[in-house]
């Protein structure tokens, strides 16, 4: 059989590293037999992974001691095999140890990190069953021939259909669940404002830890992190940890501090407001300042469109009087930021030494490196944007970058 020609892949959309998750195609149990060496003893569906392919990578499935008890994933041809090799030392076994590896097989292009905890947990259940009653190794019970294929088949079916599986075998109950793995949340800064992206009532506060419960009431879409820490009387790093956790679970998003001196600009996503009916309805409901009268789409669209470089929110309000249009400008900005149809233009002061006028650099001027924004500097020194403006304006060696 020609190993290189198996299952010619015709898909162009999916490639290794594309990040798409796929179903589990096969589950197999591999053991180390004292005479035959590594071999597959049970596989569902049968013969999914051929003997030739298995032999090519068996050294990663039953690996040397140093690689035992860790997740090992091997890509070979069209398969991605994830396993957790286990060795049980006991003099009752021939050669003093029993080696096995319970593996999931997915397509080569699929993301598999979400299955890793499941593979590990299932292996640990099997390890426990083996240690208690020789479930896997005892040849007299024929568990491997009869019970195990049924168990693996059920798990395969359940995980692919609803992401979880409960299997009862003898006195052991196995609970398996595929948990969505999200990317790491960003670091949280003092000057950022957390805002809820889901309805507060949709989750039970008692389920969160005590610190988070203490912090939750101060997350109102206006308080920045430093302020929350002060008001809730919780240590700053703890607040950051809580907020980061909430961001990870998609419950909270981070937006900049609301100030009338802020400048915003639209993003290309604004066109969805023009085209998507549902989006329009959500928007008008959110930004309305009255319970009864909703603003018109035209007015809201004009307000957003006029957000640009050089126009502060104050300018916008003076020009258009959002209140009269039934628009709450704070909520307007919040909605825009949350849905990424507008973005904040930050000011970055840069200190450039004036040639011929060398003077000692003040502590404040040291922050003018083009990396720290107004928001960050103000937060750090506890000054208002106006105060910082005054400092910057009378200093000829400082230039402002808006981006």
């Amino acid at each position, binding site marked *: 059989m020609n190993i290189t020609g198996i299952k010619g892949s015709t898909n162009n959309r999916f490639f290794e590293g594309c990040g798409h998750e796929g179903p589990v195609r096969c589950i197999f149990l591999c053991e180390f037999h*004292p*005479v*035959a*060496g590594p071999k597959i003893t049970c596989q569902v569906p049968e013969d999914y992974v051929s003997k030739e392919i298995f032999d090519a990578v068996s050294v990663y499935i039953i690996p*040397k001691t140093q690689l035992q008890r860790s997740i090992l994933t091997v890509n070979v041809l069209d398969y991605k095999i994830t396993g957790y090799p286990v060795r049980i030392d006991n003099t009752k076994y021939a050669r003093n*140890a029993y080696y096995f590896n319970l593996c999931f097989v997915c397509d080569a292009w699929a993301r598999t990190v979400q299955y890793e905890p499941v593979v590990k947990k299932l292996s640990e259940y099997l390890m426990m069953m083996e240690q208690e009653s020789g479930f896997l190794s005892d040849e007299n019970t024929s568990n491997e021939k009869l019970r195990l294929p049924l168990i693996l088949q059920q798990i395969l079916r359940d995980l692919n259909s609803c992401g979880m599986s409960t299997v009862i075998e003898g006195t052991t109950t196995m609970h398996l669940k595929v948990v969505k793995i999200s990317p790491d949340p960003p670091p949280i800064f003092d000057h950022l404002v957390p805002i809820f992206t889901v309805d507060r009532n949709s989750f039970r506060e008692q389920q969160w830890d005590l610190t988070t419960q203490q912090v939750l009431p101060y997350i109102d879409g206006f308080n920045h992190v430093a302020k929350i820490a002060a008001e809730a009387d919780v240590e700053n790093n703890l607040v950051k940890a809580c907020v980061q956790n909430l961001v990870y679970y998609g419950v909270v998003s981070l937006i900049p501090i609301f100030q009338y001196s802020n400048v915003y600009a639209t993003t290309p996503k604004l066109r969805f407001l023009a085209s998507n009916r549902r989006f329009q309805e959500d928007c008008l409901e959110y930004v309305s300042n009255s319970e009864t009268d909703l603003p018109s789409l035209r007015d809201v669209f004009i307000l957003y469109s006029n957000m640009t470089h050089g126009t502060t929110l104050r300018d916008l309000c003076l020009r258009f009087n959002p209140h009269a249009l039934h628009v709450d400008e704070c909520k307007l900005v919040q909605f825009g930021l949350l849905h990424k149809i507008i973005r904040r233009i930050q000011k970055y002061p840069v200190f450039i030494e004036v040639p011929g006028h060398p003077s000692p650099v003040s502590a404040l001027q040291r922050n003018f490196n083009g990396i720290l924004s107004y928001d960050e500097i103000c937060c750090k020194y506890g000054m208002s944007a106006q105060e910082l403006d005054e400092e910057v304006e009378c200093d000829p060696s400082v230039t402002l970058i808006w981006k």
Partner: protein
Amino acid sequence: MKKKVLLMGKSGSGKTSMRSIIFANYIARDTRRLGATIDVEHSHVRFLGNLVLNLWDCGGQEAFMENYFVSQRDNIFRNVEVLIYVFDVESREIDKDMHYYQSCLEAILENSPEAKIFCLIHKMDLIQEDQRDLIFREREEDLKRLSKPLECTCFRTSIWDETLYRAWSSIVYMLIPNVKELEQSLNHFANIIDADEVLLFERATFLVISHCQRRHHRDVHRFEKVSNIIKQFKLSCSKLAAQFQSMEVRNSNFAAFIDVFTSNTYVMIMSDPAIPSEATLINIRNARKHFEKLERVSQTQSALTK
């Protein structure tokens, strides 16, 4: 100087146990706890200061063997100095064992035709004592015949007696780069001090690497017996955190001295009991410098050639 030694044989034949006893200070009883060797275990053993034995202990399970002959063929069988093939004397599948052995020989012929081949008929302790010679002769005949055109040297071994040391001494002897020089010097030394016999052991393994016999002795197996006994004694000493240094044993018929010789060797001198101990000890001390120099020279030589 690095020399590659392949250790092959069916699963469970005793390869790792032997390696552990000779090179890793295991006693026979300890080998019971060893697990199966997964694929190839590589170890580097420093020998005599000028030789590094690159041991390839190859797991004998069928899946691995097939792998060695096919996908890993070049990697395994190139640049081999010595092939040691271990046969379990109690094996019920002699035909299969021979088949694997022949596959090895084919691969050796293709990749390392100059390699020296040793066959160990192992676990002889499981055979009744009066049958041992007969069974060994039969196996040896078969193997020599099957190995043609290659030549093989056969040994009968067991981890429970000195036969293990005999086989491995002979194997290692083939690999020592300056063994002839050593023998000459040892000869000279033995003549000067009027010894009955002088043995040179490698320090860590206690394998006999050279000897000079000036008086007849009827036990041809005495070398490996001494290796075995002294190695066990040395290991027992280290269990009590004591380092074995030297030993003097005498009776009315002989005087035996075992002492540290060079940084890599021990020496054993058998002499006439009439010669006072002091004389022999002084001789050992004076000879040391010369043999140290020999070792250093050959070390630089091999460093240059490598």
